[in-house]
């Protein structure tokens, strides 16, 4: 059965982002999702950071403090191997969910 909860969707988006851009801070992740989805998906900080910490705890992402261009320290996240596997599974599950929903919508 495919997972279709919202938390799972956020995880999928974050994991996918980190697969596309190897290393990003939280703000960067939020911007990336917003930009790529052409402002359709707005990520709430209130969900993003707890999710990032939870995913780090599960070993899907790892983090490191990096000093950026403007000499400010920021926490950058990276996808782990474990996270890559999780992403593949989440993508598959998402596709199944979409197929299921599509089938429902097309049923006449």
């Amino acid at each position, binding site marked *: 059965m495919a997972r279709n909860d919202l938390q799972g969707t956020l995880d999928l988006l974050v994991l996918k982002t980190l697969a596309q851009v190897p290393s990003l*801070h*939280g*703000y960067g992740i939020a911007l990336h999702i917003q930009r790529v989805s052409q402002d359709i998906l707005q990520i*709430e*900080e*209130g969900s993003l*950071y*707890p*999710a990032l*910490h*939870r995913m*780090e*705890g*599960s*070993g*899907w992402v*790892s983090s490191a*403090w990096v000093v950026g261009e*403007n000499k*400010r*320290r*920021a*926490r950058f996240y990276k996808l782990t191997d*474990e996270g890559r596997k*999780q992403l593949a*599974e989440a993508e598959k599950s998402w596709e199944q969910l979409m197929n299921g929903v599509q089938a429902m919508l097309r049923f006449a």
Partner: protein
Amino acid sequence: MERFRRLWAFVNRERVNSEIEEELQSHLEMRAHDHMAAGMTREQAVRAARLQFGNPSALKQRVQAADFALGVESFLSDIRYGVRGCLKNVGITTVAVLTLALAIGVNTTFFAAFEGVALKPLPVKDAGGLLRFEQWLESGTTGDSQFFVSWPEYQFYRSHARTVSNLVAVSRLISVVGVPEGASAENGLALQTQVVSDNYFSSLADSAAAGRFFVPENHETAAAPAIVLSYPFWQRQFNKDRAVIGKTLRVNNTVFTMVGIAPRAFIGTGAPPLVPDFWAPVAMQAYLEPGHAWTALPNDAQVQMLARLRGGADRSQAQAELLRLAQDWGLAQQRKDKTIAVTLAHATFFGETNAPWFRGVVVSLMVVIGLILLIACANLTNMLMARGTMRRHEIAVRRALGATRLRLLRQLLTESLLLGLMGGACGLAVSFWASHVVQVVLQQMVQSLAILGGAAFSINLTPDLKVFVYTLLLSVLTGILFGLYPALQFSKADAADALKSEGSTAGQHTNRSRLRSLLIGGQFAISLFLLISAGLLLQGLRRSLTVDPGFETRHVFFVNLNIGPQPSAAFQSRIVEQMRAMPLVASVAVSFKPPGTGTYGRPAIIEGNHGSETLLQGGALGDRVSPDYFQTMQVPLIRGRNFTRQEAELGVAVAVISQSTARRFWPEEDPLGKRFKLGAQTGDGWEEFEVVGVARDARNANLTRIDPVFFYLPTAPNQFSGNTLIIRVKADPGSSARAVVESLKASDPKLQPNLVSLEEGQLRLQRLLVQMLAVFAGLLACLALPLAAVGIYGVVAYLVSQRTREIGIRMALGSTRGGVLSLILRQSMRPVAIGAGLGFVLAVTASSLLHAFLILPGAPDLLFGGSFLDPEVFAGLSCLLASVALLASYIPARKAMRVEPMNALRCD
């Protein structure tokens, strides 16, 4: 790594919180920065970012919660999951916990014993800081001479040492006869005492249990002789009556006042911990040991020293200073043997814990006992492997639902850690009981030894905090040891694969079954090794009970007259003649090292017929004896003659040798008139002796074996100073010995005679050691065998249950029940056979190594002359082990025979 970070986070919450804050802050600033780039003013930008962000402290809390949940909650859920896992399989859990309880219990008990002996400080005031003086000599001499110094030497250290304070001195145990006030002289008590320096009690004990300790006057003069009683003696003799304080005890015609009782816990500072009956000031030494006043002799090492570091000094400074002082003293006394090092070790119950032999014994015992734990771990690994395979499905499902490998690994390890801790807790209970038993047995054994004069032996093996910590560490280590491999294996399990095959069928997981075979093989190797060692030692024990030492033991007594070091020759002659004249005494002899009192050996050269000379490997053992010795000890001369009295008095170079020696030196030749050389007593030369007689073989050096080479040289018949005086009585040993003591006392009131039976003294000690060793090995083997049996039972049972379908197919295709049985047994017996083979080789090797030691003439033969490769023991115990293994695998294998082909094929 993540786990560590969480753990770190848990202890360092402050830091984590500030990190979260910083992360959120950087987010806000980046957004504000972007807003500014888009044209806002700084104030506007910050405000907009804030608005978008929402309540930062609420968000911070949510992030914290996410962090926290992963740390603690998942840990709790691991434990819940583990407990559930254990409860689901009560049978397996029980077996596992019991197995561990035994194995950990044995290890903990050993550690408690080791701790009690080597680590626990003496129960004295501020024990942690108390150090025992030990010196290391150039000659490499070890033992007593490392700990004892003369009284003048002690005073020298005390007045010169700047780095230590409270330097105290205490003598060896001195045997005396004490007559309590009001008792008659005939009712004297055989007592043990120690003389101590003036600061002994003030430095080591808080206050007396009753009365007081010594006052300065007691130490300065012999005018007011005072003694302090030990608590056990007070209890035993006076029934803890406080009225004894102020009463007197007469020793050697000196009347001592009992001024106080030492505290109950105070057991003195002896190593080994023998508690004297009372203590006396060193000023009274000459009165306690009349004729042997040693307090003025600078080279008579009689006291050992204990000290504390003076404030500001560290141990290495103190050791360096004492070494310098020891060397100064040695120089001043013109000592030949130079002190090359001084160590100050924490004062424990036994002194020689630094000695290489002690460490060797401890390490080898630890290895053997560790083997038991290893067997137990192998069993549990096997069990977990078997159970894990059944749980593959469950694990695969969890895996598919998104549990990471790490998380599964953690859960599986938590489970085995839980098992380990439960086993450890039960093991601790086992060891509480066991160490109590060991303590009681040890105490009784030592106290029953007549040679120690019945001094109370104090040892405390009750497990303490160190033992708890040790057990805890052991339990955790054990849990990881047996749980890690299965956990790694099963957390790896590929979800899809496991779900597809739904449990396993024939012929898969070859690497896993290979591991099981390896574990089973290892178990049987260890078990057979322990079993054979125990078997050989028990053979030795059996022989030790019936062994004929080759001389009389029951009627023979060693006489200790407790007189000074230099009695005159005339006095000695008079005593010997007097004893010889007693009607109860059959014979009186003098010997330098009679059986059980140590060995006397010299390098030897055998002279052949044509002037050829052969150096004897390992040297020869011997004794210097008076001509009456053979008659006294009832050692018959087989050939030739005894020494004449004249030869004995003049010390002529003639010798009597044992039968074995004759056979070994001059096989198939007449030994009489042959000659051999012994290394000179002093210097490098050789002394030549002529053989005049051959005595029957005996076990002089060691009850465990007939001396391979033993010579008797003559010594003067009446001079017993420096030697041992031996008598043989005619009638009942007990009453005769008492009569001899009485008549000696009657003849000279200064004498304090003390008779020790050869049978009850030395020989008993030697037998006891062999018994202890054999019982110990037997116990270990008794533990190892059932553990190995349970191990193979579990594996075969699992094997059968896994191969039900295969067996069904085989039977459907026409295999007979016998065929199936032999298939299962063949497969399960292969690792057993290999393991047993290995154990066999191990046992042969160990036994041969032990046997090789016998080349040293003094080395004990723990098997009492039994064969080191005793075919009965080796073959018999191998068969026993094989039948246990067969039986253990037959029971589950029988199930395979009953498989109904149709049911089996349907079962998946």
